[in-house]
């Protein structure tokens, strides 16, 4: 108790260097815990990009590739599935609902997704949230287009604006389907998922802009069909989809269903379970995570080294103090205890201040981060990871405290009561 009292009073006496040391430890601890929080937030927002979908089905290829183009709007689909195949599966008794996706076109760098009303009804993200419309209505007619929130915001589109779709998915497509402009009928609420960066049309719309493109090249001059031609048609026949999302009637059937789809002989296709595939993908990204964590651990070490330096350099000025303590009967062990306690107090104060700083920053910054980068960082009471970090910081402080303490021990033994200041 006496040693603790002495340690605290000694630290208070050197208030400036103490607060600098505590501050630097606090900052480094805040960084460590902050990065951990951001990491958890990233991981959660990543694996919550899509929810309640049991399977994603597409042409045979890479699992992650299917996930990338269907969910994240990245990369290109390899092959399409025929509409008949899709219909066959959609009516499978074990399948409750499907959301078909027709991909491959873009509008000024944003993906164009052909889908149907099931998308607006069934698509779920982040723990079961539904797609909601900020303005207008969900597209249902051939030339209707519904915009993701970012698309509308970045391009400054409003209801009624005309949108031309580009063939292919480059930023600047050179082949525009501009004989058939679409009109904006709805704008979606922000979801902070890739949905915000997509342009939604109907599957019929996708078919319509590709009339005459069946061989992959634009129609010959004079053979193009116009918007009016299409509108005059009684029915537009949908020929293909790129992928589709599946909700199973019973979740227990998902694995069996997946196997069944993978073994389907009509056409080469595959089904992936989004949760598993997302996990697999995250593992790939996880290296960056480990690297980040490693960096923050080093930052904490640097913070603690700062403490070490500050304690160590203070020792010379404190030789007199040590001699006095020795004279009133303090053994070298008490000198060691005093310095180790100082270092423990500093690191504990730094750790607690760092934790407080993280929560202060989180509560202040959470809405801003969410609005700016769409990353939702959950605020929750310190969990086992945080407590582990704090314990590690205090333990490291404790161990580092022995460096100045042993130096003081040797000095105290050597100086005795005679201090050569």
């Amino acid at each position, binding site marked *: 108790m*006496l040693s603790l009292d*002495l340690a605290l*009073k*000694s630290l*208070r*006496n*050197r208030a400036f260097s103490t607060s600098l040391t505590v501050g630097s430890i606090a900052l480094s601890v805040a960084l460590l815990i902050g990065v951990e929080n951001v990491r958890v937030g990233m991981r959660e927002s990543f694996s919550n990009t899509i929810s309640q979908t049991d399977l994603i089905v597409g042409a045979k290829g890479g699992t992650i590739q299917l996930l990338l183009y269907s969910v994240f709007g990245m990369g290109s689909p390899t092959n399409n599935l025929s509409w008949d195949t899709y219909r066959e599966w959609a009516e499978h008794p074990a399948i409750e609902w499907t959301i078909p996706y027709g991909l491959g076109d873009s509008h000024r760098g944003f993906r164009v997704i052909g889908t149907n009303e099931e998308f607006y009804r069934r698509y779920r993200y982040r723990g079961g949230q539904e797609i909601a419309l900020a303005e207008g209505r969900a597209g249902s007619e051939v030339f209707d287009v519904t915009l993701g929130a970012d698309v509308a915001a970045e391009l400054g589109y409003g209801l009624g604006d005309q949108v031309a779709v580009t063939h292919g998915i480059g930023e600047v497509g050179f082949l525009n389907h501009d004989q058939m402009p679409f009109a904006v009928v709805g704008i979606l609420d922000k979801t902070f998922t890739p949905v915000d960066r997509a342009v939604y049309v109907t599957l019929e719309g996708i078919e319509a802009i590709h009339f005459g493109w069946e061989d992959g090249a634009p129609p010959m001059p004079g053979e193009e069909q116009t918007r009016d031609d299409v509108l005059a048609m009684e029915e537009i026949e949908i020929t293909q989809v790129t992928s589709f999302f599946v909700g199973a009637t019973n979740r227990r059937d998902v694995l069996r269903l997946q196997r069944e789809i993978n073994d389907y002989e009509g056409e080469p296709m595959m089904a992936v379970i989004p949760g598993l595939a997302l996990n697999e993908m995250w593992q790939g990204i996880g290296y960056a995570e480990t690297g980040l964590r490693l960096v923050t651990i080093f930052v904490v070490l640097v913070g603690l080294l700062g403490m070490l330096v500050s304690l160590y350099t203070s020792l010379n000025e404190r030789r*007199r*103090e040590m*001699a*006095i*303590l*020795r*004279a*009133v*009967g*303090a*053994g*070298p*062990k*008490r000198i060691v205890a005093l310095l180790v306690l100082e270092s423990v107090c500093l690191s504990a104060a730094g750790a607690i201040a760092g934790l407080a700083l993280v929560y202060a920053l989180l509560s202040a910054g959470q809405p801003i981060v969410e609005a700016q980068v769409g990353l939702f960082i959950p605020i929750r009471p310190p969990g086992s990871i945080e407590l582990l970090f704090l314990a590690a910081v205090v333990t490291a402080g404790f161990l580092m405290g022995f460096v100045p303490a042993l130096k003081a021990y040797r000095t105290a033994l050597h100086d*005795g*009561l*005679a201090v050569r*200041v």
Partner: protein
Amino acid sequence: MSLAIEVHGLRFRYGNGPWVLDIPELTLERGTRAFLFGPSGSGKTTLLGVLAGVLKAQEGEVKLLGRDLTSLSGAQRDAFRAEHIGYVFQMFNLIPYLSVLDNIALPARMNAARRARLDGAGVKETAALLADHLHIGDLLKKRVTELSVGQQQRVAACRALIGAPEIIVADEPTSSLDFDRREVFLELLFAECELAGATLVFVSHDRTLESMFSRTISLPDINRTAL
């Protein structure tokens, strides 16, 4: 009368250096006010270190209150010092981050035996009483950095005296005071030592104070290495 300090054949050196102390014989009876005189470099501070048990003599016997310090371990000598010895330095006696009161109370807080000798009075009360005796009762709450040198030395004396240790060792405690203040300081110190029945070993290179003591020891005379 029993002996407070009894030294036989003491030899001490730092590491493998030359012998600094070689004292065949030194005895002090309890209650003595001893004036230990010696010029700079005659080994005064080293002798005090040995007597306080901070330094360990390589040869000979150093008995304090009948205990031979050379037979004790470092920790035992620390405990012995905490219990039986009050120490006053030449200057800079005080721990800068403790108040006057906390500085005085330190030995009593550090050592249970010193605490037990307070006769049931609290540490604070005893510290305040001692401070009153040395005329610094109004300074207890002050920071030590606000004190004059003379006040600091009195605080140091209070600290050495608290819990009535049998031996008070003072290493030139008056050398930074002017003459009048030296006498006042010494008189106060003597009075307190007498009250507690303590033996005082007072070291100085300044013989003007010699007449106030009951016994004078010249270190060059007893230390054979000094010549």
